[in-house]
């Protein structure tokens, strides 16, 4: 990424300035330094307000997280003041990151203050009224597409029609969804003091960002092209990073901290160190849940992976109607797990379920053979501790095998046909080709399928939660279907033990992580992943 000519000239000029004993600092640079100083002091004041509970009342774990974030922001901002004074690029980088976050946070609070997020219901209710006009706009846009490659007079007419349709559609759309009341509501809310302040801060932060990114800043700080690339990279990935921090990274850190407390989800949290983890060591319900999920994994994972491979091999044959079968096998993966579980719940019913009815009919049919008097088995699929987890396995396999089949199928279609042709010339049969070509070539796919299926299996929740209700608790008969995630849910939302639930979550994470590492190590030793 090369710099514009003017920037290069500015850099040369600034480099010359830097090398001189006395460096003049332009006014905007002083303003930037002052802004960062203000940023640091503001963060410090906010930190004090949170700590004392004056003006900003946040309790429990969020308070500690907020205090940490504000403290870090204050330190970084003050550091950046020092760097900006020294014309060091690090100051520019810090200023860029901090103001990027400030713009996002202030923008979020502006929208929150004007109640936009609480307006999602209104959005759902009102936007539907504008859909016909949105369709008119879409037609207008399509018409504009037809205006290319036609006679000039047609092109003019089509463009005119297109713009007319889009203008009319846009106007009608805005009016129908409530442009005037919407804007009025927005304006009346935005002039309220908190919203105005947040908006002003957001706008200032954006202006500072533009300044920090400007060519004059590049020249002043003497930033290299590598350093500029870093700033550009941060700008590009910032939506993802902010989303990750807000919805994944942040909650992960918070949950780790919560797991070290006795937080009930509502009040203050007390730090208890590893107390929750130590309690897990002697908790018979947690041990039972681990044993249950171990049994489930040992049975369900091979049944979800091995038949999927065989099925994919069959579906990979060039036979008439194969596409229909591929779609059919994929259907359970498309269907929601809740819907699938509800259907299986009906099938499993011991007294009026179709499975037991089929067993009854089958037995009666077999008993037509003279001399046979078999008794039809009528398993209590869900209410018998010895079959309850097996019932969960069947539903899980039913739900996952289709998706795994598609993954294997995709892998199979990448296998060069020449390999099979060469094997045939060498006299290999169907089994020989499968064993010596298909399985080795599909090894990376198999690793991926195995890992994803393992993760899914160890997080088993929906199946026992739905299949057991309301006759039994999700734990099933004699806790036969109690899983770590079910136990986590019960502690978090039924027993007000958020700290303990977080500890269960982290232990489960470590178990899954360890198994994944074992998978990778094994495959790496076999040369699968490196190949």
């Amino acid at each position, binding site marked *: 990424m090369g710099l514009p000519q003017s920037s290069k000239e500015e850099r040369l000029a600034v480099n010359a300035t830097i090398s001189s004993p006395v460096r003049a600092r332009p006014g905007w640079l002083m303003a930037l330094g002052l802004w960062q100083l203000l940023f640091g002091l503001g963060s410090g004041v906010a930190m004090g307000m949170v700590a004392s509970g004056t003006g900003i009342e946040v309790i429990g774990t969020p308070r500690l997280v907020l205090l940490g974030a504000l403290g870090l922001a204050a330190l970084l901002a003050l550091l950046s003041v020092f760097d900006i004074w020294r014309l060091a690029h690090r100051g520019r980088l810090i200023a860029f990151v901090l103001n990027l976050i400030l713009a996002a946070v202030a923008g979020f609070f502006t929208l929150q203050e*004007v*109640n*936009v997020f609480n*307006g*999602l*219901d*209104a*959005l*759902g*209710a*009102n*936007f539907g009224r*504008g859909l016909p006009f*949105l369709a008119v*706009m879409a037609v207008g*846009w399509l018409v504009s597409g037809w205006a290319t490659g036609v006679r000039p007079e047609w092109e003019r007419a089509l463009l005119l029609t*297109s*713009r007319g349709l*889009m203008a009319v559609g*846009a106007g009608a*759309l*805005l009016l129908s*969804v*409530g*442009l005037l*009341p*919407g*804007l009025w*509501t*927005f304006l009346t*809310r935005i002039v309220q003091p908190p919203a105005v302040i947040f908006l002003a801060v957001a706008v200032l932060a954006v202006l500072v960002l533009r300044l920090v990114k400007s060519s004059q800043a590049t020249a002043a700080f003497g930033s290299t092209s590598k350093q500029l690339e870093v700033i550009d990279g941060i700008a590009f990935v910032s939506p993802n990073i902010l989303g990750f921090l807000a919805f994944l990274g942040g909650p992960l850190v918070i949950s780790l901290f919560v797991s070290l407390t006795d937080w009930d989800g*509502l*009040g203050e949290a007390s730090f208890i160190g590893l107390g929750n983890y130590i309690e897990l060591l002697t908790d018979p319900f947690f041990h039972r849940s681990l044993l249950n999920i171990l049994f489930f994994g040992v049975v369900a994972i091979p049944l979800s992976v091995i038949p999927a491979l065989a099925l994919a091999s069959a579906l990979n044959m060039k036979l008439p109607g194969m596409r229909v079968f591929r779609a059919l096998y994929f259907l359970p993966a498309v269907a929601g797990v809740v819907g699938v579980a509800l259907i299986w*719940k*009906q099938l499993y*019913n*011991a*007294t*009026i379920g179709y499975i037991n009815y089929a067993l009854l009919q089958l037995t009666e049919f077999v008993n037509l053979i003279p001399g046979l008097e078999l008794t039809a088995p009528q398993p*209590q699929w*869900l*209410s*018998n*501790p010895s079959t309850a987890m097996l019932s969960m396995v069947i539903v899980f396999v039913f739900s996952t095998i289709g998706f795994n089949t598609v993954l294997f199928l995709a892998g199979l279609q990448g296998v060069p046909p020449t390999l099979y042709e060469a094997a045939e010339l060498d006299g290999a049969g169907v089994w020989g080709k499968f064993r010596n070509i298909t399985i080795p070539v599909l090894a990376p796919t198999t690793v991926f399928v195995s890992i994803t299926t393992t993760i899914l299996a160890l997080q088993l929740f929906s199946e026992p*939660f*739905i299949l057991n*209700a*309301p*006759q*039994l*608790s999700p*734990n099933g*008969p*004699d*806790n036969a279907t109690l899983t770590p995630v079910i136990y986590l*849910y*019960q502690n978090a*939302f*039924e*027993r007000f033990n958020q700290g303990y639930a977080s500890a269960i979550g982290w232990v489960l994470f470590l178990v899954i992580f360890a198994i994944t590492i074992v998978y990778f190590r094994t495959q790496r030793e076999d040369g699968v992943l490196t190949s």
Partner: protein
Amino acid sequence: MKLRKLGLLVVVLSMFVAACSGETASTTVAPDTTEVSEGEGDSLRWRTRPDNDEEAAVYAGISDTLAAELGIELQYEPGGTETAGYQQNLLTELAAGTAPDVFWLPGTDIADFATRGVILDARSLADATDHSDDDFYPGPMFHLTFDPDSGEAGGVLWGLPRDVSTFGLYMNVDLIQEAGVEDPRELAANGEWTWQKFGEVVDGIGALGGEVVGYGQSSWWGPYGYWINAAGGGFFNEDRSACALDSTESVAGLAALAEFYAESSVVPWGEDAEAPFRAGNVGLFQNGRWATPGIRTVDFDFDVVKLPDGPGGPSNWLFWGAYVINANTSNPEAAWDLVAALTTADVQAQVAESGANVPSRVSQAALDAFLTFTPPANNQAFLDGLSENPTAEGPLWAGSWPEFVSVMDAEVGAVVTGATSIEDYAADICTLTESAFTG
């Protein structure tokens, strides 16, 4: 390209203004023509957990009416079912500070929410009105007025019961007549409806053979708890501070249930009994009033009879849930007005008409109205449950109810299915549930 960008801009702008432009369909606003009242200008969100869509519509209608009567802007939010995460959503909203001003809680959850300070003690608000605790059944009011600090009932007020329910035995009258057994309703009327007669009726229906069985119940704590209570036992000691599942009476009740399941014609333990009952394969099905709307759709003649009297005399559960006030509501007075208005005899009668519950107010007018909400013809069976020594469901003020139930469910199930002997159960059960009291 420019055209497309402009189009996209218009769509984004339209979504933005749509989000800002006004009220949703679920919001009800008091009409401007309403006379100025004390609460005018207040705005409240409130939530219940309706048993079905029909009941949700009834609540929405009630919300409209009360908004006009009270001069309060009301937003009614039908909560999801228990399995759809009603409590989970509520807990998350309470933590985030976005929970409704008034919401419904199951009776067993009151202690957890009250001791954590998330629901308001409405005693002072209630005392400023003509409210009387005696207008409601004493069982729920014990828990709703229990002060965890003093350990006594009466000093505080955590809310008012939305409704109550008891167990009844839903009868497939066609099967009973086909089996030629004695009619349980007549036995109950003659005071002869005992466990022995109950067993005879169940076996008689089961003798029809095929897919028909005599009896079915769910396996959660309510149905098996009836057997324990009716034998003269109970889950807890008198002040609910310790387990009483190992008392002689409690153990005898569970032993009777286990024996009944081992020897009689029943839907297997832990299996859904409602579906086979609705399919016409079960003679007697034990469930609460909340099952009535679903059972009204069956195509055979059905009715209800009270639960049989056990060795300890008549027994039943008094199930209930309550409207409570969010401790962080900005309008406590208006919230109390709403709670009071939602629990009047008139409003309770409107809800009870849909069939899923019984009014919680001790009001002859409300009960008379309830009796007219047929089928079943014998609605009196549910009211008998209210008057015949019911045990009110309730939280554990000195322990964790969910933890207690979790252990109890598994151990009771093991006894009924024969996996554990009743002697082993009696020896261990109160040790196993001890952690629910000690934390």
